[in-house]
C-alpha cells in the first residue's frame, strides 16, 4: 500500500434519521471452566440477545453492575471479539458483509478504562497516536502532523508532550492521549468504556468537558459505558440499563430518572450516593450479588433479588416493551397488564408515580 497524505473522510450514508448504530439480538457466550476434553464446563451468557440503536450525534449511556456485559458489548461492537449471534448495522451497512472489519475500524474507535495499560510503554505519545493512521496508509510526516493536531485538540501542547513516554504523564494526560488516539482515524462513533472512571473527580470533570467539546467540534456520537450514574446522567441523552447480559430498561435520561419502571433501575438509582444529607441511603435497595451468569435464573433474571417477584417472574422471561413514554422501554412483568403480575394493573393506575 502506498503512503497517502490524507485519510479519506468517512462519509454519512443514510441521512440524520438513520441510526448510526443498530444492534440486533447480539449474543456472546463464553465457555467457562472447560475440562480437559471440553466437557463439564458451563457457558457464560455474557451478552444475551441485546438489541438497541444509537442515533447520529447522540450520547447513549450503558449502566449496570460489574459483569453485566457492558464491556463485552463494547468489544463486540468494535469487533475485538466475534459475536455468536446477532447483527450489528453501522449507518445502514451490516458489519461483516456490507462493511468490512477494516473499514469499521475507521468508523468506530474506543477509549479504554485503564489509561496506563492502554498505552504502549515503549512508544512515545506521538508514535502511539500516529500508529493507527500509519496502518491505514498515511505517510509518516502526515501522520505526525495529524498526531500533533490531535494533541492540540485534546489540550496537550505537542511541543511538550509529543516525545514523552506514558510513564511521564499524569492519569488525566494519559487519558487525553487515549482520546487523541481514538480520534486519530476520524471515527464517527467513539465507545468510552469507563473512560473517566479511574480519574480524580476534578480531572474527570475536565475530561468530560473535553469530550463534550470534541463531540460538537467533530460531529461525534458516543456510547458511554460507566457504573457512575451521576456521570452518565450528565453526559447522556439516552441510557440503557443492563443486568446479567440483558437490557432491562432503556430510555431518555430524564424519563429514566423520574419514572424508572424496572425495579433494578430503581434500585440502581436509589443506590446513588447523594450530597444531600436528607437523601441519605439508609439501607441497601437490593441485597446480594448478581446470580452466576453461567447458570442464570429462569424467567426474569432479576427475580431472585426483586422485592416484587411473583410466580410469573420465575416462570416467564419478560420482553422489552414500551412504557407508554416515547423511546422508554422496560422488560418487567409489572408494566405488562397481560402478564398476570398482581402489581401490573395497580401500577398502571398509579402512574406516573411508580412507587
Amino acid at each position, binding site marked *: 500500500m502506498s503512503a497517502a497524505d490524507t485519510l479519506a473522510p468517512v462519509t454519512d450514508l443514510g441521512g440524520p434519521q438513520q441510526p448510526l448504530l443498530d444492534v440486533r439480538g447480539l449474543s456472546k457466550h463464553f465457555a467457562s471452566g472447560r475440562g480437559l476434553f471440553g466437557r463439564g464446563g458451563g457457558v457464560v451468557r455474557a451478552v444475551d440477545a441485546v438489541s438497541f440503536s444509537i442515533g447520529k450525534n447522540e450520547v447513549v449511556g450503558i449502566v449496570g453492575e460489574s459483569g453485566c456485559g457492558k464491556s463485552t458489548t463494547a468489544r463486540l461492537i468494535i469487533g*475485538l471479539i466475534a459475536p455468536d449471534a446477532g447483527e450489528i448495522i453501522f449507518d445502514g451497512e451490516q458489519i461483516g458483509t456490507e462493511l468490512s472489519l477494516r473499514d469499521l475500524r475507521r468508523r468506530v474507535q474506543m477509549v479504554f478504562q485503564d489509561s496506563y495499560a492502554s498505552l504502549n510503554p515503549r512508544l512515545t505519545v506521538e508514535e502511539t497516536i500516529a500508529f493507527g493512521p500509519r496502518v491505514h496508509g498515511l505517510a509518516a510526516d502526515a501522520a505526525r502532523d495529524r498526531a500533533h493536531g490531535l494533541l492540540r485538540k485534546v489540550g496537550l501542547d505537542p511541543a511538550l508532550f509529543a516525545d514523552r513516554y506514558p510513564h511521564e504523564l499524569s492519569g488525566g494526560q494519559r487519558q487525553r492521549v487515549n482520546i487523541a488516539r481514538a480520534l486519530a*482515524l476520524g471515527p464517527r462513533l467513539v465507545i468510552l468504556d469507563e473512560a473517566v472512571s479511574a480519574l480524580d473527580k476534578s480531572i474527570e470533570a475536565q475530561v468530560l468537558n473535553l469530550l463534550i467539546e470534541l463531540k460538537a467540534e467533530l460531529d461525534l456520537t458516543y456510547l458511554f459505558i460507566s457504573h457512575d450514574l451521576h456521570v452518565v446522567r450528565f453526559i447522556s441523552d439516552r441510557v440503557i440499563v443492563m443486568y446479567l447480559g440483558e437490557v432491562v430498561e432503556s430510555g431518555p435520561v430524564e424519563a429514566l430518572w423520574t419514572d424508572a419502571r424496572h425495579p433494578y433501575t430503581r434500585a440502581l438509582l436509589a443506590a446513588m450516593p447523594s450530597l444531600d444529607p436528607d437523601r441519605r441511603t439508609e439501607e441497601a435497595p437490593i441485597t446480594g450479588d448478581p446470580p452466576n451468569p453461567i447458570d442464570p435464573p429462569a424467567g426474569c433474571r432479576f427475580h431472585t433479588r426483586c422485592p416484587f417477584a411473583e410466580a410469573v417472574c420465575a416462570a416467564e422471561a419478560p420482553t422489552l416493551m414500551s412504557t407508554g413514554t416515547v423511546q422508554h422501554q422496560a422488560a418487567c412483568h409489572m408494566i405488562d397488564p397481560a402478564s398476570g403480575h398482581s402489581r401490573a394493573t395497580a401500577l398502571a393506575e398509579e402512574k406516573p408515580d411508580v412507587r
Partner: protein
Amino acid sequence: MTVAANDIVAVARADKARGYWSLVGRRLARDRVSTACALVIALIALGAVLAPWLGLADPYQGSMIRRLRPIGTAGYPLGTDELGRDMLTRLIYGGRLSLMIGLTPVALAFVIGTTLGVIAGYLGGLVNQAIMRTVDVFYAFPSVLLAIAISGALGAGIVNSLLSLTIVFIPPIVRVAESVTTSVRTLDFVDAARASGAGPLTIMRVHVLGNVLGPIFVYATSLISVCMILASGLSFLGLGTKPPEPEWGLMLNTLRTAIYLNPWVAALPGAMIFVVSIGFNLLSDGLRSAMDVRS
C-alpha cells in the same frame, strides 16, 4: 513562569534524547558490580580480538625441553603447557574460539527462540500448541546429553557444535518469550492496536516485541555462561574444537594429565571459563535490575 516552562521543554527534549535503553545503560553504569564485570569481559574480548597484534609468542610453537614450566618462569609469565607452548598466549588466543562458541549459539537461539515464542504467545490456539509441544520434546533430554547427542550425530567440528548448542538453547528461550508475550498480549494497548486495524505481524513488531525483548534478553545473557561451559564440555569430549587449536575447554582437557605435576598451570583454562561465566551471570543480574524502571 516562562523560565519554568522552558525548563519543562528542556526536560521533555532530554527525555526524547535518552529513551528507554539509554536510561537502562545509565542505571547499569551506576552499578559497580556490573561495570566491573563488563570491564573484565571487555578486556578478555579485546585481547582475543587483537591477539595477533599484541606481539605474543606463537600459540602453536611448542618445545619439548620447556614443558610444564610453572607460573612466573622468566619469558613465560603463566608457564607452559604439556607441549611447551606459552600459556599466556594460548589463553588469550583461546578467548577467540571460546567467546565465539559461547556467544554465537545464544545469539542465534535468541533470534530464533524469540521469533517462535512471540508468534506462539501472540497467536495462541493451535499455533501455540504446535510450537510449544514441539519445544517440549526437547525438554525430555537433559541439555548436556542433547548437545552431546546432536554433536555426535552431526560429527565433530566447531560448526556442528555451534549448531547443536543453538538447538539446545532454542527451547528455553521460546518458553520465556511465549510466557512474556502471553502476558503482554492481554494488555489494553494491544486491543487498541487491533482496534486500529493493524494486522498481527504489525502488532507483534511494533507493540509486542518492544515490551518482551527486555526480559528475554536478560534471560539470554544468563545462558551465555551455560553455553560456554557446555561448549567447553563438548571440546573436552573431543566433539568441538580439535587440537592444536587453542580453546579453553580443550586446553583444560589436554592439561588434565598434568594436574599432579603442575596443578596451577593446569587450572588456568578452567579459571578463564569461570571468570567469564561469572562475569556474564552477574552482568545479566545487573541488567535485570537496571531494566526494572517502569515508572
